[in-house]
């Protein structure tokens, strides 16, 4: 399992990440990279992509799935539970509180201004991580992967194709391509 971390660290870091991920599940990926990969060296960037792929291929909130699967990766079943609980507590508490003060909160000009600025910052974070991960995928020099990455982007962003179809399609395509390549190799060997 590689390096181990304490459950207290895992709980704390998940609370912290969850409390500051404005703008949806994908912002968790750069946060995980910063603390699990760069600071603690618990796994490398390639494995982060594997974990993100599992979290995204499953239903529900990607942020919580990722907290669970990274927790499982670094500390087994206990880690999965602690990662989840840590990730769920901040929104649970914040939303309970905010629902009482919703009107005042949403009409405050400064609150709105800060959130608009953060929206732009969040975009920069996600684009930054896409550049690094995209580069890592293209470095594998696999023609199928070079097609799958931009295809997923175009299908979902421009054509609004259902994400389940894109994930299922890419799984089927990569399995078929690998199978065909192996058959061809075996064929020429005989």
């Amino acid at each position, binding site marked *: 399992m590689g390096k181990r971390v304490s459950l207290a660290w895992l709980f704390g870091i998940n609370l912290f990440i969850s409390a*500051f991920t404005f703008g949806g599940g994908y912002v968790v990926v750069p946060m995980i990279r910063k603390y699990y990969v760069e600071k603690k060296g618990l796994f490398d960037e390639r494995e982060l992509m594997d974990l993100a*792929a599992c979290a*995204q291929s499953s239903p529900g909130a990607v942020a919580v799935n990722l907290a669970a699967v990274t927790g499982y990766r670094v500390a087994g079943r206990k880690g999965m539970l602690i990662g989840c609980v840590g990730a769920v507590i901040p929104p649970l508490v914040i939303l*309970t509180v905010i629902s009482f003060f919703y009107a005042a909160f949403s009409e405050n000009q400064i609150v709105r201004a*800060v959130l608009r600025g953060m929206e732009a910052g969040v975009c920069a974070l996600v684009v930054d991580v896409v550049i690094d991960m995209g580069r890592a995928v293209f470095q594998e020099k696999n023609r199928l992967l070079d097609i799958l990455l931009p295809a*997923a982007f175009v299908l979902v962003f421009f054509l609004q194709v259902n994400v389940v179809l894109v994930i299922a399609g890419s799984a089927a395509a990569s399995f078929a391509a*690998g199978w065909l390549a192996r058959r061809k190799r075996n064929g020429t060997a005989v």
Partner: protein
Amino acid sequence: MELLFSLLGNFLQVGLFSFGGGYATIPLIQEYIVEGQGWLTYQELTDILTISQMTPGPIAVNTSTFVGTRIAGFPGAVFATVGCVLPGVLMSVALYYFFRKYNGIQGVSDVLAGLRATSVGLIAAAAGSILLIALTGSSELGQGSGIGAATAGVFAGMLFMLRKWKWSPMLVMAVSGGLGALLFGVLGL
């Protein structure tokens, strides 16, 4: 008690069928929570989406907390939230376990490699959507009110700091929030 299990059951279904995260949850919340159970009005659903924009945390968890609290207090929030996160959490860990265990089998590692590339494409698509909303105020291409120069400036500045100086995500959030207060709040852009 019956109510708590009803919350759990309905949110389990929301959690089980909402592939794609984030906005993919909305149609399921409509089907099960708004139309099916009448636990939420459309106006309240819109309010929750606005709150979700402004606070951390996934839309699914925010909705389950809000609905659960209203229907059955704090225990309701816990049951509803457990319901909506459980299917995804179990499935992602099961997938990871499966891929790691059978990674020696060529077919399995082919699929994982493909999913890895697709996952980056999906993150890129999400980046495109949130960038579009931040810059034009609309999630549809060509529907917004032009590109906000101040927002574009904050985005470009933060991206530069990330690439060139390796700023931490927290620093980016703090600085972009501060710039937002200055540009949109004080200067009124």
